[in-house]
């Protein structure tokens, strides 16, 4: 309770800029949490080429657990599949997964880089307040001056507090997603080769 009260006082000290900072922070953390959980879930997906070929031959779509299985499931759900065009359809299915992979990563980075800007905005507002007070009362009224300075420092601090984990998480997520993407690409390449061999066989008939 005491801690909450302290936090609320801190929040009030920051002035009006704290509200957008709060919204931004909540948004950023929600996205980060969602994406990290997503990455943790998707990384466990262990769909190998052999399993995929087996699924394809049996005609049973695998349960969707990540981009690979999602691509395969979509591919298998497409109407009018036949060996001669399978490579293209497969390519389309794989491409379909890309936006989902990169979803939210850019947003996290943008929000994290906007946070210090908002903090800076608060600082500038605080300094305007401070100088306005000096302009009004001279340097004698230290109390009134302190309000503006407090606002300036609190907002910068909050902006940085939000931005640092955000940027860090953004880069970690970027690396993770790139790894996932590479996994998907190599999987799709392998399956493509397998489909290609079927396609050539189909053309040669």
């Amino acid at each position, binding site marked *: 309770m005491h801690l909450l009260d302290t936090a609320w006082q801190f929040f009030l000290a920051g002035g009006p800029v704290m509200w957008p900072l709060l919204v931004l922070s909540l948004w950023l953390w929600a996205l980060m949490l969602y994406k990290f959980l997503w990455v943790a879930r998707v990384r466990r997906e262990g769909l190998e080429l052999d399993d995929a070929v087996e699924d394809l031959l049996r005609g049973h779509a695998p349960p969707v657990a990540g981009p690979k299985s999602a691509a395969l499931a979509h591919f298998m759900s497409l109407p009018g599949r036949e060996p*001669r065009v399978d490579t293209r359809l497969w390519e389309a299915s794989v491409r379909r997964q890309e936006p989902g992979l990169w979803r939210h990563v850019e947003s996290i980075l943008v929000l994290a880089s906007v946070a210090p800007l908002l903090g800076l905005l608060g600082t500038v507002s605080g300094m305007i307040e401070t100088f306005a007070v000096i302009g009004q009362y001279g340097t004698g009224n230290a109390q009134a001056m302190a309000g503006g300075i407090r606002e300036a420092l609190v907002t910068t601090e909050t902006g940085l507090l939000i931005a640092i984990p955000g940027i860090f998480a953004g880069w970690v997520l970027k690396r993770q997603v790139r790894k996932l993407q590479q996994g998907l690409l190599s999987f799709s390449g392998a399956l493509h080769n397998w489909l290609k061999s079927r396609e050539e066989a189909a053309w040669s008939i």
Partner: protein
Amino acid sequence: MRRLLFILSAALLLAAAPALAADFDQAAKDTAADLATAKQEAATAQQSIAQEKAAMTARLKELSARLAAEKKALAAAREGLAQASREKAELGRKLAETSGDLKELAGHVRAGARELLALAERSPSTAQSPGRLEELRGYLNKSRFPGLSDISKLLDLYFAEMAASGQIARWRGPLVDRQGREVSADIVRLGSFTTLYKSGDELGFATLGPASGRLLAAGGDPSWLLGRDITAYLDRQSPAAPMDISGGAALRQLSRSETAWERLQAGGPLVWPILAVALAALILIIERLFFLRRVRANTDQMMASVAEEVAKGDFAAALEEVEKQPGRPTSNVLAAGLAHRGQAADVIDAGLSEAMLRELPRLERFLTTLKVLAAVAPLLGLLGTVTGMINTFQVITVFGAGDPRLMAGGISEALITTQLGLAVAIPILIASALLGRRVSRLAGDMEEKAVALAAALIKAEH
């Protein structure tokens, strides 16, 4: 004298004796008689002289006795004088002491009156007893010596002020409103902290004019929330009243608060380009939002029916299906792909890529512009700040840096453009990121559908 006469006459008689020999006896008798008479006379004279001398001596004695007595009296009087002057000095010292105490007392009374005056000049309770200020100013007159009644009156004033500072008073009285007119208003005084008033539609805080002792409306409209609280309290609907417990500083702050428009104008000429940037960005964002909203569609469903028609070999129906969603990038690409039907796979691929390349600029239009605007806005703000600073420092070169107010006001105004630049840039930044994501999703969808169409066309061909 008489003796001299006697001697002379004796000598004359002695000298005349030979001449008057005949008569010598007679003469001798006469002379003897004369002598005797003379002797008698002389004796008488001597006696009277002696008497006189005695009298004189007695008188002299008496006089010298008197002199001595007088001298004695004089000495005594001198002694008395010295004593008296000693006493006088003593009394003078005492007087000085006492009057010093009195002066000190008068000084204390005056200081007390001055303090109360300073208090009364700010305290709203003065408005209820307007004569108070004049009375208190009377105490400051140096030539007037405060008597006991004055002192007790001052004490009464003090106690009245103390009592007033713990009261909530409601009354209807005159007040100078924000337009400077004297009006009659409902006034509520909360101790000596805050005065609320309501006169017609106008309501707000009032402060005391120190010189006139009249209530003046504090400058600056109270915000809507504050106004609501004041109304609720004045109408006795809420026990909570907004107060200024800082002794007027918060009210001064309130009157100092300026509207956003005034602040913008204070920012200098660079405010306008920043606002222009904001306006341009707003227009572009709205345009993009409308455009992207318009072109977003359920392409999955369309693609399924197109693939179905193509598989059946009914290209006209497929084209019709595509044209149900005209103007959308995916539709355009699919239409371009359908136009290449019956051609080699490579040709179809190339045709689709070309169509996609044609669509992409339409999607990505203005996104770069938005990013540039987001980058330019803070720079413009910085430019405005630097310009403002230059002006401020020019002021300093003229007037010197003696008064920090002169400088601080300029700096405060100079910073407004930076604030505005940042406030404009941040939403543009977020909006352009969100729009960019949407565009890339649309582009991905377009590519995917193009590949699917290529597959369907090739399959249909063979």
